[in-house]
Protein backbone atom coordinates (compact mmCIF):
# COMPACT_ATOMS: atom_id res chain seq x y z
CA UNK A 1 0.00 0.00 0.00
CA UNK A 2 1.02 3.51 -0.61
CA UNK A 3 0.70 5.11 2.77
CA UNK A 4 4.32 6.23 2.79
CA UNK A 5 3.53 8.79 0.12
CA UNK A 6 1.51 10.79 2.54
CA UNK A 7 4.02 10.30 5.21
CA UNK A 8 7.01 11.47 3.30
CA UNK A 9 6.35 15.16 2.97
CA UNK A 10 7.38 16.73 -0.30
CA UNK A 11 10.11 18.61 1.47
CA UNK A 12 11.88 15.35 2.14
CA UNK A 13 12.31 14.57 -1.48
CA UNK A 14 13.51 18.02 -2.34
CA UNK A 15 16.24 18.27 0.12
CA UNK A 16 18.23 16.23 2.49
CA UNK A 17 17.51 12.78 1.23
CA UNK A 18 20.86 11.37 0.85
CA UNK A 19 21.06 9.34 -2.31
CA UNK A 20 18.89 8.25 -5.16
CA UNK A 21 20.62 4.91 -5.14
CA UNK A 22 19.04 2.69 -2.48
CA UNK A 23 21.26 1.59 0.34
CA UNK A 24 20.83 0.08 3.75
CA UNK A 25 22.31 3.01 5.61
CA UNK A 26 18.98 4.27 6.90
CA UNK A 27 18.40 1.02 8.74
CA UNK A 28 20.88 1.92 11.43
CA UNK A 29 18.35 4.57 12.46
CA UNK A 30 15.09 2.77 11.72
CA UNK A 31 16.34 -0.66 12.74
CA UNK A 32 16.04 -0.35 16.53
CA UNK A 33 12.47 0.89 16.28
CA UNK A 34 11.49 -1.87 13.90
CA UNK A 35 13.11 -4.53 16.03
CA UNK A 36 11.10 -3.66 19.13
CA UNK A 37 8.07 -3.07 16.95
CA UNK A 38 8.33 -6.57 15.55
CA UNK A 39 8.51 -7.96 19.06
CA UNK A 40 5.55 -6.14 20.56
CA UNK A 41 3.31 -5.68 17.53
CA UNK A 42 4.08 -7.98 14.65
CA UNK A 43 4.67 -11.15 16.61
CA UNK A 44 1.40 -10.90 18.59
CA UNK A 45 -0.45 -10.03 15.38
CA UNK A 46 1.01 -13.07 13.68
CA UNK A 47 0.02 -15.13 16.67
CA UNK A 48 -3.48 -13.65 16.62
CA UNK A 49 -3.87 -14.52 12.94
CA UNK A 50 -2.77 -18.04 13.72
CA UNK A 51 -5.25 -18.24 16.60
CA UNK A 52 -8.03 -16.96 14.35
CA UNK A 53 -7.84 -20.17 12.33
CA UNK A 54 -8.78 -22.32 15.31
CA UNK A 55 -11.70 -22.71 17.63
CA UNK A 56 -11.09 -23.59 21.25
CA UNK A 57 -14.22 -24.68 23.02
CA UNK A 58 -14.92 -25.23 26.70
CA UNK A 59 -15.99 -28.75 25.83
CA UNK A 60 -14.22 -30.57 23.04
CA UNK A 61 -10.96 -28.68 23.00
CA UNK A 62 -9.08 -26.99 20.21
CA UNK A 63 -9.58 -27.65 16.52
CA UNK A 64 -8.52 -26.14 13.21
CA UNK A 65 -11.45 -24.47 11.49
CA UNK A 66 -9.81 -22.64 8.61
CA UNK A 67 -11.64 -19.44 7.73
CA UNK A 68 -14.84 -20.29 9.63
CA UNK A 69 -14.26 -17.53 12.16
CA UNK A 70 -13.92 -14.98 9.38
CA UNK A 71 -17.06 -16.18 7.73
CA UNK A 72 -18.85 -15.86 11.04
CA UNK A 73 -17.50 -12.34 11.57
CA UNK A 74 -18.63 -11.16 8.14
CA UNK A 75 -22.20 -12.23 8.85
CA UNK A 76 -22.29 -11.26 12.52
CA UNK A 77 -24.96 -8.56 13.02
CA UNK A 78 -23.47 -7.51 16.37
CA UNK A 79 -20.11 -6.90 14.76
CA UNK A 80 -21.59 -4.85 11.95
CA UNK A 81 -23.73 -2.78 14.27
CA UNK A 82 -20.57 -1.90 16.19
CA UNK A 83 -18.83 -0.90 12.96
CA UNK A 84 -21.79 1.27 12.00
CA UNK A 85 -21.72 2.97 15.38
CA UNK A 86 -18.05 3.93 15.22
CA UNK A 87 -18.55 4.96 11.58
CA UNK A 88 -21.18 7.47 12.67
CA UNK A 89 -18.96 8.58 15.52
CA UNK A 90 -16.11 9.10 13.08
CA UNK A 91 -18.17 11.26 10.76
CA UNK A 92 -19.40 13.57 13.50
CA UNK A 93 -16.90 13.67 16.33
CA UNK A 94 -13.59 13.68 14.47
CA UNK A 95 -14.32 16.77 12.33
CA UNK A 96 -15.58 18.72 15.36
CA UNK A 97 -12.59 17.79 17.47
CA UNK A 98 -10.00 18.50 14.78
CA UNK A 99 -11.64 21.79 13.89
CA UNK A 100 -11.57 22.95 17.50
CA UNK A 101 -7.98 21.79 17.88
CA UNK A 102 -6.90 23.63 14.76
CA UNK A 103 -8.70 26.76 15.88
CA UNK A 104 -6.93 26.80 19.22
CA UNK A 105 -3.56 25.98 17.65
CA UNK A 106 -3.92 28.86 15.20
CA UNK A 107 -4.99 31.19 17.97
CA UNK A 108 -2.01 30.20 20.06
CA UNK A 109 0.27 30.66 17.08
CA UNK A 110 -1.18 34.02 16.11
CA UNK A 111 0.53 35.81 18.95
CA UNK A 112 -2.67 37.74 19.63
CA UNK A 113 -3.62 35.87 22.73
CA UNK A 114 -3.29 36.99 26.30
CA UNK A 115 -2.05 34.26 28.66
CA UNK A 116 -0.88 31.93 25.94
CA UNK A 117 1.11 29.47 28.04
CA UNK A 118 -1.81 29.08 30.42
CA UNK A 119 -4.14 28.12 27.62
CA UNK A 120 -1.63 25.79 26.08
CA UNK A 121 -1.25 23.86 29.31
CA UNK A 122 -4.86 23.96 30.44
CA UNK A 123 -6.30 22.68 27.18
CA UNK A 124 -3.77 19.88 27.01
CA UNK A 125 -4.30 18.83 30.62
CA UNK A 126 -7.41 16.61 30.17
CA UNK A 127 -5.29 14.26 28.10
CA UNK A 128 -3.23 13.61 31.21
CA UNK A 129 -6.13 12.56 33.44
CA UNK A 130 -6.04 8.86 34.31
CA UNK A 131 -8.98 6.85 33.05
CA UNK A 132 -10.29 5.92 36.47
CA UNK A 133 -10.61 9.58 37.42
CA UNK A 134 -12.20 10.48 34.13
CA UNK A 135 -14.79 7.85 34.99
CA UNK A 136 -15.52 9.37 38.37
CA UNK A 137 -15.61 12.91 36.98
CA UNK A 138 -17.92 12.26 34.09
CA UNK A 139 -20.00 9.97 36.23
CA UNK A 140 -20.62 12.94 38.47
CA UNK A 141 -21.27 15.36 35.64
CA UNK A 142 -23.66 13.08 33.74
CA UNK A 143 -25.59 12.01 36.84
CA UNK A 144 -29.24 12.92 36.33
CA UNK A 145 -30.24 12.24 39.94
CA UNK A 146 -27.57 13.80 42.13
CA UNK A 147 -24.96 14.69 39.53
CA UNK A 148 -24.38 18.00 37.80
CA UNK A 149 -27.20 17.39 35.33
CA UNK A 150 -29.52 16.60 38.24
CA UNK A 151 -28.39 19.73 40.05
CA UNK A 152 -28.98 21.92 37.04
CA UNK A 153 -32.43 20.43 36.65
CA UNK A 154 -33.26 21.22 40.27
CA UNK A 155 -31.78 24.68 40.29
CA UNK A 156 -33.32 25.91 37.06
CA UNK A 157 -36.48 23.86 37.17
CA UNK A 158 -35.76 22.40 33.77
CA UNK A 159 -35.53 18.78 32.82
CA UNK A 160 -32.48 18.09 30.76
CA UNK A 161 -32.47 14.73 29.04
CA UNK A 162 -30.45 12.00 30.73
CA UNK A 163 -27.07 12.01 28.93
CA UNK A 164 -26.76 8.30 29.62
CA UNK A 165 -29.91 7.19 27.85
CA UNK A 166 -29.41 5.03 24.77
CA UNK A 167 -30.26 7.76 22.25
CA UNK A 168 -27.74 10.21 23.71
CA UNK A 169 -24.97 7.96 24.89
CA UNK A 170 -22.93 8.21 21.69
CA UNK A 171 -23.01 12.00 21.86
CA UNK A 172 -22.01 11.88 25.54
CA UNK A 173 -19.08 9.66 24.69
CA UNK A 174 -18.18 11.99 21.84
CA UNK A 175 -18.08 14.84 24.30
CA UNK A 176 -15.67 12.99 26.59
CA UNK A 177 -13.44 12.04 23.67
CA UNK A 178 -13.42 15.61 22.43
CA UNK A 179 -12.58 16.83 25.91
CA UNK A 180 -9.68 14.40 26.17
CA UNK A 181 -8.20 14.82 22.73
CA UNK A 182 -8.68 18.43 21.66
CA UNK A 183 -5.52 19.34 23.55
CA UNK A 184 -3.62 16.42 22.14
CA UNK A 185 -4.40 17.38 18.54
CA UNK A 186 -3.94 21.04 19.32
CA UNK A 187 -0.42 20.28 20.43
CA UNK A 188 0.36 18.43 17.21
CA UNK A 189 -0.88 21.32 15.11
CA UNK A 190 0.80 23.85 17.33
CA UNK A 191 4.18 22.19 17.18
CA UNK A 192 3.83 21.80 13.42
CA UNK A 193 3.10 25.52 13.16
CA UNK A 194 6.28 26.17 15.11
CA UNK A 195 8.46 25.04 12.26
CA UNK A 196 6.71 27.18 9.67
CA UNK A 197 9.16 29.98 8.94
CA UNK A 198 7.78 33.18 10.42
CA UNK A 199 9.37 35.15 7.61
CA UNK A 200 6.96 33.53 5.17
CA UNK A 201 3.89 35.19 6.54
CA UNK A 202 5.63 38.28 7.67
CA UNK A 203 6.36 39.11 4.07
CA UNK A 204 2.83 38.16 3.14
CA UNK A 205 1.55 40.57 5.75
CA UNK A 206 3.73 43.28 4.33
CA UNK A 207 2.20 42.53 0.97
CA UNK A 208 -1.16 43.30 2.52
CA UNK A 209 -2.55 39.81 3.02
CA UNK A 210 -5.13 39.54 5.83
CA UNK A 211 -4.95 37.10 8.71
CA UNK A 212 -7.47 34.68 7.21
CA UNK A 213 -5.66 34.70 3.93
CA UNK A 214 -2.35 33.95 5.61
CA UNK A 215 -3.96 31.10 7.51
CA UNK A 216 -5.62 29.70 4.43
CA UNK A 217 -2.81 30.00 1.96
CA UNK A 218 0.29 29.70 4.11
CA UNK A 219 -0.26 28.15 7.52
CA UNK A 220 -2.70 25.38 6.69
CA UNK A 221 -0.82 24.14 3.62
CA UNK A 222 2.36 24.24 5.65
CA UNK A 223 1.00 21.88 8.30
CA UNK A 224 -0.80 19.69 5.81
CA UNK A 225 1.22 16.65 6.82
CA UNK A 226 0.24 17.06 10.45
CA UNK A 227 -3.43 17.55 9.53
CA UNK A 228 -3.58 14.41 7.46
CA UNK A 229 -1.80 12.31 10.01
CA UNK A 230 -3.90 13.65 12.88
CA UNK A 231 -6.97 12.72 10.85
CA UNK A 232 -5.68 9.24 10.19
CA UNK A 233 -4.78 8.63 13.79
CA UNK A 234 -8.19 9.98 14.82
CA UNK A 235 -9.82 7.52 12.46
CA UNK A 236 -7.85 4.68 13.97
CA UNK A 237 -8.70 6.04 17.43
CA UNK A 238 -12.42 6.14 16.63
CA UNK A 239 -12.42 2.65 15.24
CA UNK A 240 -10.66 1.51 18.39
CA UNK A 241 -12.94 3.39 20.78
CA UNK A 242 -12.79 1.48 24.04
CA UNK A 243 -11.93 3.34 27.24
CA UNK A 244 -14.84 5.75 27.27
CA UNK A 245 -17.58 3.19 26.66
CA UNK A 246 -15.87 0.86 29.11
CA UNK A 247 -15.93 3.59 31.75
CA UNK A 248 -19.50 4.65 31.19
CA UNK A 249 -20.77 1.10 31.01
CA UNK A 250 -20.69 0.93 34.79
CA UNK A 251 -23.16 3.79 34.86
CA UNK A 252 -25.22 2.99 31.79
CA UNK A 253 -25.04 -0.79 31.41
CA UNK A 254 -28.12 -0.96 29.24
CA UNK A 255 -27.23 1.82 26.82
CA UNK A 256 -23.75 0.45 26.17
CA UNK A 257 -23.91 -3.10 24.95
CA UNK A 258 -21.08 -5.59 25.06
CA UNK A 259 -20.72 -5.04 21.32
CA UNK A 260 -20.90 -1.24 21.44
CA UNK A 261 -17.68 -0.72 19.48
CA UNK A 262 -15.60 -3.27 17.55
CA UNK A 263 -12.77 -3.03 20.05
CA UNK A 264 -15.16 -3.45 22.98
CA UNK A 265 -16.72 -6.40 21.20
CA UNK A 266 -13.30 -8.03 20.76
CA UNK A 267 -12.71 -7.42 24.46
CA UNK A 268 -16.03 -8.94 25.54
CA UNK A 269 -15.49 -11.95 23.33
CA UNK A 270 -12.08 -12.62 24.82
CA UNK A 271 -12.66 -11.80 28.44
CA UNK A 272 -16.27 -12.69 29.12
CA UNK A 273 -16.72 -15.52 26.68
CA UNK A 274 -13.17 -16.83 26.30
CA UNK A 275 -13.72 -16.80 22.53
CA UNK A 276 -10.28 -15.50 21.76
CA UNK A 277 -10.12 -17.26 18.42
CA UNK A 278 -13.20 -15.51 17.18
CA UNK A 279 -12.07 -12.29 18.81
CA UNK A 280 -8.82 -12.46 16.83
CA UNK A 281 -10.77 -12.88 13.59
CA UNK A 282 -12.95 -9.87 14.46
CA UNK A 283 -9.83 -7.84 15.17
CA UNK A 284 -8.26 -8.75 11.84
CA UNK A 285 -11.41 -7.86 9.90
CA UNK A 286 -11.60 -4.56 11.78
CA UNK A 287 -7.96 -3.81 11.01
CA UNK A 288 -8.59 -4.35 7.30
CA UNK A 289 -11.60 -2.01 7.40
CA UNK A 290 -9.57 0.61 9.27
CA UNK A 291 -6.70 0.43 6.82
CA UNK A 292 -9.02 0.82 3.86
CA UNK A 293 -10.78 3.85 5.35
CA UNK A 294 -7.49 5.43 6.42
CA UNK A 295 -6.07 4.88 2.98
CA UNK A 296 -9.03 6.47 1.23
CA UNK A 297 -8.96 9.45 3.57
CA UNK A 298 -5.26 9.86 3.07
CA UNK A 299 -5.59 9.84 -0.72
CA UNK A 300 -8.39 12.40 -0.65
CA UNK A 301 -6.68 14.44 2.03
CA UNK A 302 -3.46 14.83 0.12
CA UNK A 303 -5.32 15.62 -3.06
CA UNK A 304 -7.52 18.34 -1.62
CA UNK A 305 -4.87 19.94 0.47
CA UNK A 306 -2.03 19.48 -1.95
Amino acid at each position, binding site marked *: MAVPQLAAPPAASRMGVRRRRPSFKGWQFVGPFMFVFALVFLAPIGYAIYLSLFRNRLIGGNQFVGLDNYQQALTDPQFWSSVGRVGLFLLVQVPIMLFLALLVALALDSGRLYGKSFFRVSIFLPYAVPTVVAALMWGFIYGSQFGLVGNINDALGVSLPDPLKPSLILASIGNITTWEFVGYNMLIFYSALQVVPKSLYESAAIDGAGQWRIIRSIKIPAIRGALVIATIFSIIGSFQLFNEPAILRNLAPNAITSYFTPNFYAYSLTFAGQQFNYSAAVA*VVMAVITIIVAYVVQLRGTKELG
Partner: protein
Amino acid sequence: MTTTAQTPARTTKKPVTLSAKKPRRKGSIMLTLLVGLMSLYALVPLGWLLINSTKTQDGLFSSFGLWFDDGKFALFSNIADTFTYDGGIFSRWLLNTLIYVVVGAGGATFLAVLGGYGLAKFNFVGKKAVFAIVLGAVAVPPTALAVPTFLMFSKFGLTNTPWAVIIPSLISPFGLYLMWTFAAQAIPGEMLEAARVDGAGEMRTFFKLAVPLLGPGIVTTALFTMVATMNNYFLPLIMLKDPDWYPLTVGLNAWNAQAATAGGEAVFNLVITGSLVTVVLLLAAFLTLQRYWQSGLTAGSVKE
Protein backbone atom coordinates in the same frame (compact mmCIF):
# COMPACT_ATOMS: atom_id res chain seq x y z
CA MET B 1 32.17 21.54 13.53
CA THR B 2 29.26 21.66 15.83
CA THR B 3 29.50 25.38 16.23
CA THR B 4 29.79 26.07 12.55
CA ALA B 5 26.76 23.98 11.90
CA GLN B 6 24.69 25.83 14.42
CA THR B 7 25.81 29.25 13.48
CA PRO B 8 23.64 29.61 10.40
CA ALA B 9 20.62 29.11 12.54
CA ARG B 10 21.48 32.13 14.59
CA THR B 11 22.63 34.43 11.84
CA THR B 12 19.63 34.48 9.61
CA LYS B 13 18.78 37.74 7.97
CA LYS B 14 15.70 38.35 10.01
CA PRO B 15 16.10 38.16 13.74
CA VAL B 16 13.79 35.58 15.23
CA THR B 17 11.31 36.87 17.72
CA LEU B 18 9.67 34.51 20.11
CA SER B 19 6.05 35.39 19.84
CA ALA B 20 5.45 34.10 23.34
CA LYS B 21 7.70 36.71 24.82
CA LYS B 22 6.98 39.68 22.66
CA PRO B 23 3.70 39.62 20.78
CA ARG B 24 4.13 41.33 17.48
CA ARG B 25 0.52 42.28 17.11
CA LYS B 26 -1.60 43.51 19.91
CA GLY B 27 -3.66 40.96 21.74
CA SER B 28 -7.20 40.31 20.71
CA ILE B 29 -9.78 40.15 23.48
CA MET B 30 -12.28 38.34 21.31
CA LEU B 31 -9.81 35.64 20.46
CA THR B 32 -8.73 35.33 24.07
CA LEU B 33 -12.35 34.93 25.16
CA LEU B 34 -12.92 32.27 22.54
CA VAL B 35 -9.90 30.24 23.57
CA GLY B 36 -10.82 30.96 27.20
CA LEU B 37 -14.09 29.17 26.58
CA MET B 38 -12.23 26.11 25.35
CA SER B 39 -10.00 26.28 28.34
CA LEU B 40 -13.02 26.43 30.64
CA TYR B 41 -14.42 23.33 28.95
CA ALA B 42 -11.13 21.58 29.64
CA LEU B 43 -10.85 22.76 33.22
CA VAL B 44 -14.34 22.39 34.72
CA PRO B 45 -14.07 18.62 35.16
CA LEU B 46 -10.60 19.13 36.59
CA GLY B 47 -12.08 21.63 39.00
CA TRP B 48 -14.24 18.79 40.24
CA LEU B 49 -11.06 16.82 40.91
CA LEU B 50 -9.47 19.65 42.81
CA ILE B 51 -12.56 20.43 44.89
CA ASN B 52 -13.27 16.84 45.75
CA SER B 53 -9.75 16.07 46.83
CA THR B 54 -10.48 18.34 49.80
CA LYS B 55 -13.32 16.14 51.01
CA THR B 56 -13.45 13.15 53.29
CA GLN B 57 -14.94 9.86 52.15
CA ASP B 58 -18.15 10.84 53.93
CA GLY B 59 -18.20 14.39 52.61
CA LEU B 60 -17.74 13.15 49.08
CA PHE B 61 -21.23 11.69 48.98
CA SER B 62 -23.03 14.16 51.16
CA SER B 63 -22.05 17.47 49.58
CA PHE B 64 -22.53 19.11 46.21
CA GLY B 65 -19.91 18.00 43.71
CA LEU B 66 -18.82 21.39 42.45
CA TRP B 67 -18.46 23.07 45.80
CA PHE B 68 -16.49 22.50 48.98
CA ASP B 69 -17.83 20.53 51.92
CA ASP B 70 -18.88 22.90 54.71
CA GLY B 71 -16.38 23.24 57.45
CA LYS B 72 -14.18 20.33 56.46
CA PHE B 73 -11.04 20.84 54.47
CA ALA B 74 -9.33 17.48 54.28
CA LEU B 75 -6.88 18.00 51.44
CA PHE B 76 -3.81 17.64 53.60
CA SER B 77 -5.07 14.68 55.57
CA ASN B 78 -6.10 13.09 52.27
CA ILE B 79 -2.62 13.55 50.87
CA ALA B 80 -1.11 12.12 54.03
CA ASP B 81 -3.53 9.18 53.93
CA THR B 82 -2.84 8.54 50.26
CA PHE B 83 0.83 8.11 51.00
CA THR B 84 0.36 5.94 54.09
CA TYR B 85 -2.68 3.81 53.23
CA ASP B 86 -2.06 0.10 52.82
CA GLY B 87 1.52 0.26 54.04
CA GLY B 88 2.42 3.27 51.93
CA ILE B 89 2.08 1.38 48.68
CA PHE B 90 1.17 4.56 46.80
CA SER B 91 4.79 5.73 46.98
CA ARG B 92 5.85 2.44 45.50
CA TRP B 93 3.39 2.89 42.63
CA LEU B 94 4.63 6.39 42.13
CA LEU B 95 8.19 5.16 41.92
CA ASN B 96 7.21 2.37 39.52
CA THR B 97 5.44 4.87 37.30
CA LEU B 98 8.47 7.09 37.35
CA ILE B 99 10.67 4.18 36.25
CA TYR B 100 8.22 3.18 33.53
CA VAL B 101 8.01 6.76 32.29
CA VAL B 102 11.74 7.43 32.33
CA VAL B 103 12.75 4.12 30.74
CA GLY B 104 9.63 3.49 28.65
CA ALA B 105 8.77 6.96 27.42
CA GLY B 106 12.43 7.98 27.27
CA GLY B 107 13.21 4.91 25.19
CA ALA B 108 10.15 5.43 23.03
CA THR B 109 11.14 9.01 22.30
CA PHE B 110 14.67 7.98 21.50
CA LEU B 111 13.59 5.21 19.12
CA ALA B 112 11.08 7.51 17.46
CA VAL B 113 13.59 10.31 16.96
CA LEU B 114 16.16 7.91 15.57
CA GLY B 115 13.64 6.19 13.30
CA GLY B 116 11.96 9.40 12.16
CA TYR B 117 15.29 10.90 11.24
CA GLY B 118 16.25 7.77 9.31
CA LEU B 119 12.98 7.83 7.40
CA ALA B 120 13.21 11.50 6.60
CA LYS B 121 16.81 11.70 5.55
CA PHE B 122 17.68 8.42 3.89
CA ASN B 123 16.53 6.36 0.97
CA PHE B 124 16.92 2.76 1.88
CA VAL B 125 15.70 -0.64 0.90
CA GLY B 126 12.36 -1.37 2.52
CA LYS B 127 11.61 2.23 3.45
CA LYS B 128 8.24 2.24 1.71
CA ALA B 129 7.22 -0.84 3.63
CA VAL B 130 8.13 0.54 7.04
CA PHE B 131 5.34 3.00 7.52
CA ALA B 132 2.77 0.84 5.76
CA ILE B 133 3.56 -1.94 8.20
CA VAL B 134 3.52 0.34 11.21
CA LEU B 135 0.21 1.94 10.29
CA GLY B 136 -1.32 -1.40 9.36
CA ALA B 137 -0.30 -2.90 12.68
CA VAL B 138 -1.62 0.03 14.66
CA ALA B 139 -5.02 -0.52 13.05
CA VAL B 140 -5.45 -3.87 14.80
CA PRO B 141 -7.68 -3.43 17.88
CA PRO B 142 -5.33 -3.77 20.85
CA THR B 143 -7.73 -5.60 23.15
CA ALA B 144 -7.63 -8.58 20.82
CA LEU B 145 -3.83 -8.61 21.01
CA ALA B 146 -3.71 -8.69 24.79
CA VAL B 147 -4.00 -12.45 25.12
CA PRO B 148 -1.48 -13.33 22.38
CA THR B 149 0.95 -10.82 23.85
CA PHE B 150 0.47 -12.24 27.32
CA LEU B 151 1.08 -15.80 26.13
CA MET B 152 4.24 -14.74 24.27
CA PHE B 153 5.62 -12.75 27.17
CA SER B 154 4.84 -15.59 29.47
CA LYS B 155 6.98 -17.90 27.34
CA PHE B 156 9.88 -15.49 27.71
CA GLY B 157 9.25 -15.30 31.43
CA LEU B 158 8.56 -11.58 31.23
CA THR B 159 5.10 -11.46 32.79
CA ASN B 160 4.87 -10.03 36.26
CA THR B 161 8.14 -8.14 35.75
CA PRO B 162 8.64 -4.43 34.98
CA TRP B 163 9.82 -5.40 31.49
CA ALA B 164 6.31 -6.48 30.59
CA VAL B 165 5.26 -2.84 30.98
CA ILE B 166 8.39 -1.18 29.67
CA ILE B 167 8.99 -3.11 26.46
CA PRO B 168 5.56 -2.49 24.90
CA SER B 169 5.71 1.19 25.81
CA LEU B 170 8.95 1.57 23.85
CA ILE B 171 6.92 1.82 20.68
CA SER B 172 5.11 4.99 19.72
CA PRO B 173 3.96 4.82 16.10
CA PHE B 174 2.60 8.31 16.35
CA GLY B 175 5.91 9.55 17.71
CA LEU B 176 7.68 7.95 14.76
CA TYR B 177 5.49 9.76 12.31
CA LEU B 178 5.76 13.04 14.15
CA MET B 179 9.55 12.86 14.14
CA TRP B 180 9.53 11.92 10.49
CA THR B 181 7.66 15.05 9.44
CA PHE B 182 9.64 17.14 11.85
CA ALA B 183 13.01 15.89 10.71
CA ALA B 184 12.01 16.35 7.09
CA GLN B 185 11.10 19.98 7.66
CA ALA B 186 13.49 21.09 10.35
CA ILE B 187 16.80 19.70 9.13
CA PRO B 188 18.06 21.24 5.94
CA GLY B 189 19.65 18.74 3.62
CA GLU B 190 22.49 21.15 2.80
CA MET B 191 23.60 21.03 6.40
CA LEU B 192 23.84 17.25 6.37
CA GLU B 193 25.68 17.28 3.08
CA ALA B 194 28.16 19.72 4.53
CA ALA B 195 28.71 17.48 7.53
CA ARG B 196 29.23 14.49 5.28
CA VAL B 197 31.72 16.38 3.20
CA ASP B 198 33.53 17.11 6.45
CA GLY B 199 33.69 13.35 6.93
CA ALA B 200 31.60 13.12 10.08
CA GLY B 201 30.05 9.71 10.78
CA GLU B 202 26.28 9.37 10.40
CA MET B 203 25.64 8.81 14.10
CA ARG B 204 27.83 11.70 15.08
CA THR B 205 26.06 13.95 12.61
CA PHE B 206 22.75 12.85 14.03
CA PHE B 207 23.59 13.55 17.65
CA LYS B 208 25.61 16.70 17.21
CA LEU B 209 23.68 18.28 14.43
CA ALA B 210 20.19 16.92 13.98
CA VAL B 211 19.08 16.45 17.58
CA PRO B 212 19.48 20.10 18.56
CA LEU B 213 17.36 21.12 15.60
CA LEU B 214 14.55 18.73 16.45
CA GLY B 215 13.67 20.49 19.73
CA PRO B 216 9.90 21.05 19.41
CA GLY B 217 9.42 17.65 17.83
CA ILE B 218 11.29 15.85 20.57
CA VAL B 219 9.43 17.74 23.28
CA THR B 220 6.08 16.98 21.69
CA THR B 221 6.93 13.33 21.21
CA ALA B 222 8.26 13.08 24.75
CA LEU B 223 5.04 14.58 26.11
CA PHE B 224 2.87 12.17 24.18
CA THR B 225 4.88 9.10 25.08
CA MET B 226 5.04 10.22 28.70
CA VAL B 227 1.31 10.61 29.00
CA ALA B 228 0.73 7.40 27.08
CA THR B 229 3.03 5.49 29.43
CA MET B 230 1.45 7.05 32.49
CA ASN B 231 -2.05 6.25 31.31
CA ASN B 232 -1.12 2.78 30.19
CA TYR B 233 -3.70 0.66 31.94
CA PHE B 234 -4.84 -2.33 29.96
CA LEU B 235 -1.53 -4.06 29.34
CA PRO B 236 -0.09 -3.68 32.86
CA LEU B 237 -3.40 -4.97 34.19
CA ILE B 238 -2.99 -8.16 32.21
CA MET B 239 0.76 -8.52 32.63
CA LEU B 240 1.22 -7.73 36.31
CA LYS B 241 -0.16 -9.70 39.23
CA ASP B 242 2.02 -8.36 41.98
CA PRO B 243 0.75 -4.99 43.30
CA ASP B 244 4.37 -4.10 44.06
CA TRP B 245 4.94 -3.58 40.33
CA TYR B 246 1.70 -1.74 39.59
CA PRO B 247 1.86 1.65 37.94
CA LEU B 248 -0.39 4.35 39.42
CA THR B 249 -3.27 3.77 37.02
CA VAL B 250 -3.66 0.11 37.88
CA GLY B 251 -3.13 0.79 41.58
CA LEU B 252 -5.71 3.57 41.70
CA ASN B 253 -8.14 1.37 39.83
CA ALA B 254 -7.62 -1.38 42.37
CA TRP B 255 -8.41 1.09 45.16
CA ASN B 256 -11.45 2.22 43.25
CA ALA B 257 -12.66 -1.34 42.70
CA GLN B 258 -12.28 -2.48 46.28
CA ALA B 259 -15.37 -0.55 47.38
CA ALA B 260 -17.51 -2.87 45.29
CA THR B 261 -16.38 -6.07 46.98
CA ALA B 262 -17.91 -7.68 50.04
CA GLY B 263 -16.32 -6.08 53.07
CA GLY B 264 -14.17 -3.82 50.93
CA GLU B 265 -13.33 -0.40 52.25
CA ALA B 266 -14.34 2.52 50.05
CA VAL B 267 -11.45 4.96 49.66
CA PHE B 268 -12.74 7.20 46.89
CA ASN B 269 -11.21 10.18 48.63
CA LEU B 270 -7.80 8.57 48.24
CA VAL B 271 -8.48 7.60 44.64
CA ILE B 272 -9.31 11.22 43.87
CA THR B 273 -6.39 12.65 45.81
CA GLY B 274 -4.04 10.11 44.27
CA SER B 275 -5.24 11.14 40.84
CA LEU B 276 -4.72 14.77 41.67
CA VAL B 277 -1.14 13.97 42.65
CA THR B 278 -0.71 12.18 39.31
CA VAL B 279 -2.10 15.08 37.30
CA VAL B 280 0.02 17.59 39.21
CA LEU B 281 3.13 15.56 38.45
CA LEU B 282 2.33 15.53 34.77
CA LEU B 283 1.69 19.23 34.90
CA ALA B 284 5.12 19.77 36.42
CA ALA B 285 6.72 17.66 33.71
CA PHE B 286 4.85 19.62 31.07
CA LEU B 287 5.96 22.97 32.42
CA THR B 288 9.56 21.79 32.63
CA LEU B 289 9.58 20.47 29.09
CA GLN B 290 7.90 23.57 27.77
CA ARG B 291 11.15 25.53 28.10
CA TYR B 292 12.80 23.33 25.52
CA TRP B 293 10.02 24.05 23.12
CA GLN B 294 10.99 27.64 22.89
CA SER B 295 14.67 26.99 22.49
CA GLY B 296 13.75 24.66 19.68
CA LEU B 297 11.92 27.42 17.87
CA THR B 298 15.12 28.56 16.25
CA ALA B 299 14.96 25.50 14.06
CA GLY B 300 12.22 27.07 12.00
CA SER B 301 14.29 30.05 11.09
CA VAL B 302 16.71 27.96 9.08
CA LYS B 303 14.36 27.64 6.21
CA GLU B 304 14.37 30.84 4.33
